[in-house]
């Protein structure tokens, strides 16, 4: 349920026309990221991890370009 000042037709414009194509990439040590590959480049769609500190790392923020080289092992503080 949306509560917004933007008209609903503007918010939902194009909804369902282009679903993201997702690929799951495992992170070393546990957890994974869902990567959106539908735009030709790989961008992080969602991070799956039980370590909340992982969510503070900017390279795992949704919308960031995914690179396996920047993946860091999951470490518990």
């Amino acid at each position, binding site marked *: *349920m*949306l*509560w*917004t*000042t*933007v*008209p*609903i037709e503007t*918010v*939902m*414009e*194009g*909804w369902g*026309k*282009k679903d*993201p194509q997702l690929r799951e990439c495992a992170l070393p040590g546990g957890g994974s990221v869902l990567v*959106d590959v*539908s*735009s*030709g*480049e790989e*961008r992080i769609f*969602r*991070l799956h*991890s039980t370590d*909340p*500190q*992982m*969510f*503070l*790392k*900017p*390279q795992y*923020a*949704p*919308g*960031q*370009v995914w690179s396996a080289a920047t993946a*860091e092992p999951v*470490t518990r*503080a």
Partner: protein
Amino acid sequence: MRRGVDELTGGSERERRRRRELLMRRYLARYIDREPDSTESERRPPHQPLLPDGSRMNDPSPPYPEHPGPAPEPGPAPVVPGAHPHGPGQPSPSTLPGAPPTGPGPGRPEGGADDDAAAVEPDRALDRYGTLRLPSSGKGETIHVLTIIGQVEGHIVLPPQNKTTKYEHTIPQLVAIETNPSIEGLLVVLNTVGGDVEAGLALAEMISSLSKPKVSLVVGGGHSIGVPVAVAADRSYITHTATMTIHPIRLSGLVVGVPQTYEYLDKMQDRVVKFIVSNSQVTEEDFREMMFRTGELARDIGTVLVGSDAVRVGLIDEVGGVSEAITHLRGLIEQRRQKEATDCVVDNRAH
């Protein structure tokens, strides 16, 4: 605190004394920003009250250093956690102009004895990962910024033309802020048009229940579900020209024809109103009157509050910008430090 108390018990008297001294050294190193020595402890006792300008009583040094932190490390600018564009064609995640350095603040303890290594490891990890941190005041505190921007996205992924705040990423960030010992305060910056009621309310509840000091700042606009998020902080600010729109919750603007649907919407609205009323100075009667006011909005009923209007009705605490918000947050952090220091002394006396 519990861990510290546990460390003080058990073993021989000599061992207990050694551990007590180690614990106190750690505590002093954290709260007066450097390894203590007798001269420093006498000059700046941790209980010395903080003046409104951020300096301490009888402290000859300026409240903040001229250069608030070390030079930024090379590499990409730190990212504002929580602000996430969605899909291709959008800019990369927002960066804060003049984003802060990620290195430790001046005088921040870099470690110490080998057995201290585990205690400082989370802090080092944050430095290494470049998580957003505001420039240090030189007092060693670490403030994080959470931006609530665009649409607050809920259980439905919104089309890519929307800039969204994704709650499944923001909620764990709030958990991390609560659990990370090196984070002492949170600044929530809002520029949102609203969004999903459940997701927005969840964020507001998470922010409200943080034990650490948190201050919110509305810039540009904090509309609809942005209102409960804004009032969830300990202290809320709004800039002179920012606006907040209060209007009824509806289901996609259609005419509500089924009584059950109306009751459901009414219950949702009650939840939001109760949260706002219990976390701000506005009365329920005034808030509902603003929500159903006619003649202000072209497409809807409701009220637009501009800057000082939001303060006048009791929704927001104060008109101000980022400097006022940060100054107040630093004051709250200092108060919390002093309370923890008092608790630590009481605990030590008890053992």
